[in-house]
């Protein structure tokens, strides 16, 4: 190894540099500590205040009449489940099909166009998507859970497409070439060979997309906010949702509303956490299994 140039080994300079290094190391550590502390603060607040409001009533009852405390958020829980269900049903086929197009069938130029389009779609603020769906569908027809799901689906499509393209790219070309070499038509190759190999990644991507939109409020503000105070599985009517409930209760003066908001937030975060952990372990499991198939 070459010896250090003379100017760098003057002891005073070296001591100063080492001190700078130590200071900056301390600053960097402090920042990490700060970030983790904020996270802990928020999660702890949600955990402590939310768990206190958990009760059987909370999960099964509807909102209490004005002025009375108690009641629950059962309609919001069911509503969120239904909204996510329809949004996923709409977004996954579209997202996967677009990804297949980009990775299997398109020319490099159209691939780039689609990718740019998806990036643009990803960059549209959620509130603008809400306005778009409102102006196009809600006006004249009324709100509905479907319209809310459509707004959510629009947000999911770029996420699902991106993760699907990545996972399709991991499928080894040898697989495709072998199938084509055997005379299997292009589309069948994709459906029977490529897709099944990528299904793990697609599921992971979907789970992450669901975790992302589960907490979205803005797309639902104008599309599914005027909902009955009762449990309903019917998406053709507007549905309550956990994020909107948290939003409304957070601005209320009533402490019992606040308690329910914390509890709903805890529920939402638990849901998102479980999804993220599931996605991550699926991903790790796939990585371990990955040999020739790439998923």
């Amino acid at each position, binding site marked *: 190894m070459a010896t250090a140039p003379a100017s760098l080994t003057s002891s005073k300079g070296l001591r100063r540099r080492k001190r700078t290094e130590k200071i900056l190391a301390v600053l960097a550590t402090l920042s990490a500590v700060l970030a983790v502390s*904020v996270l802990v603060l928020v999660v702890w607040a949600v955990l402590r205040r939310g768990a206190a409001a958990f009760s059987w009533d909370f999960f099964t009852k509807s909102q209490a009449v004005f002025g009375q405390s108690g009641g629950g958020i059962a309609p919001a829980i069911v509503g969120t489940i239904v909204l996510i269900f329809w949004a996923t049903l709409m977004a996954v086929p579209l997202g996967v099909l*677009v990804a297949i*197009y980009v990775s299997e069938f398109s020319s490099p130029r159209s691939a780039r166009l*689609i990718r740019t389009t998806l990036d643009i779609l990803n960059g549209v603020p959620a509130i603008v998507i809400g306005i778009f769906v409102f102006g*196009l569908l809600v006006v004249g027809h009324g709100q509905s859970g479907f319209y809310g799901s459509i707004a959510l689906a629009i947000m999911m499509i770029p996420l699902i497409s991106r993760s699907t393209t990545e996972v399709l790219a991991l499928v080894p070309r040898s697989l495709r070439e072998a199938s084509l070499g055997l005379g299997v038509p292009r589309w069948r190759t994709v459906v029977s060979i490529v897709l099944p190999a990528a299904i793990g990644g697609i599921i992971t991507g979907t789970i992450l997309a669901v975790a992302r939109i589960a*907490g979205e409020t803005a797309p639902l503000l104008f599309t599914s906010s005027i909902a009955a105070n009762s449990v309903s599985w019917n998406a053709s009517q507007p549905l309550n949702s956990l994020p909107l409930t948290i939003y409304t209760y957070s601005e209320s003066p009533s402490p019992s509303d606040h308690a329910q908001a914390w509890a709903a937030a805890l529920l939402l975060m638990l849901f998102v956490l479980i999804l993220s952990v599931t996605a991550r372990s699926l991903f790790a499991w796939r990585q371990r299994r990955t040999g020739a198939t790439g998923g």
Partner: protein
Amino acid sequence: MTTLAAVFVVALVVMIVYEVVRQAWPAIQHFGISFVWTDVWNPIKGEFGAWQFIVGTVVSSFFAILLATPISIAIALFLTELAPKWLRGPVATLVELLAAIPSVVLGLWGILVLGPVLASDIEPWLNKWFGWLQVFSGQPSPVGMLNAILILTIMIVPIVSAITRELFLHVPKDLKEGALGLGTTRWEAIRGVVIPYCAPGIVAAVILGIGRAVGEAIAVAQVSGNGTTIQRSFFAPTNTLAAKIANSYQGAATKLEGDSLLYLALILLILALFVNGMAQVVIRRAEKRGVL
């Protein structure tokens, strides 16, 4: 069939832009471009202008990213260089979890936890020691610009730090070792080699963080105080494009007000797409140079 899907997605984006422009068109015709720099929002007299919301959006996002960038880079450095190996995984996971907190929950925390602390402790302290700065003068308030900036910072940090961490992890080892071999300290190696190497990526991450902050409607609506004028003090209420739309769109009393809100939405869309586009340009250029 896949072609159909791809065409549909392109059509969707075109439709979104077209719809927002179309719905804003009456206001554009009525006010012209001067709407952008007009500072008034008077529903009674029918005078509207976007300026106070643009200022609110820019100021809150700017200071949020100002706070978030050094913190995010420092966190990324901590996770790649300083932390003992057994700590890296868990801390990285924790920071990612911060990204998973829905914005409405952060807003809830901002109103009920951060707000009171700001009003009773932090803002009076800032006022006492830095009150000669106009931004820290004025009446402490639980909601306002400062609360919004802090909440936005908390939102941006996970995004920027996650991307920066990825970038640091992908720096070629020989580049770093070369610098260390020349006798630099670790920090000097980082400052002189790693950061310049990752600079385009960090810039892109920062720009993406700005995009996130600009588009945030709900959490900002919860903690901004819904101000109606541009104030010098950070303690005072403020308002942003996205939050104003979230608060007022459904209830516009006159057609002109509704159209003006859609004009706001158009400005927001242009702003967000511009920021997003810049990030894409930086990324593409870095990819071409082979550094990403």
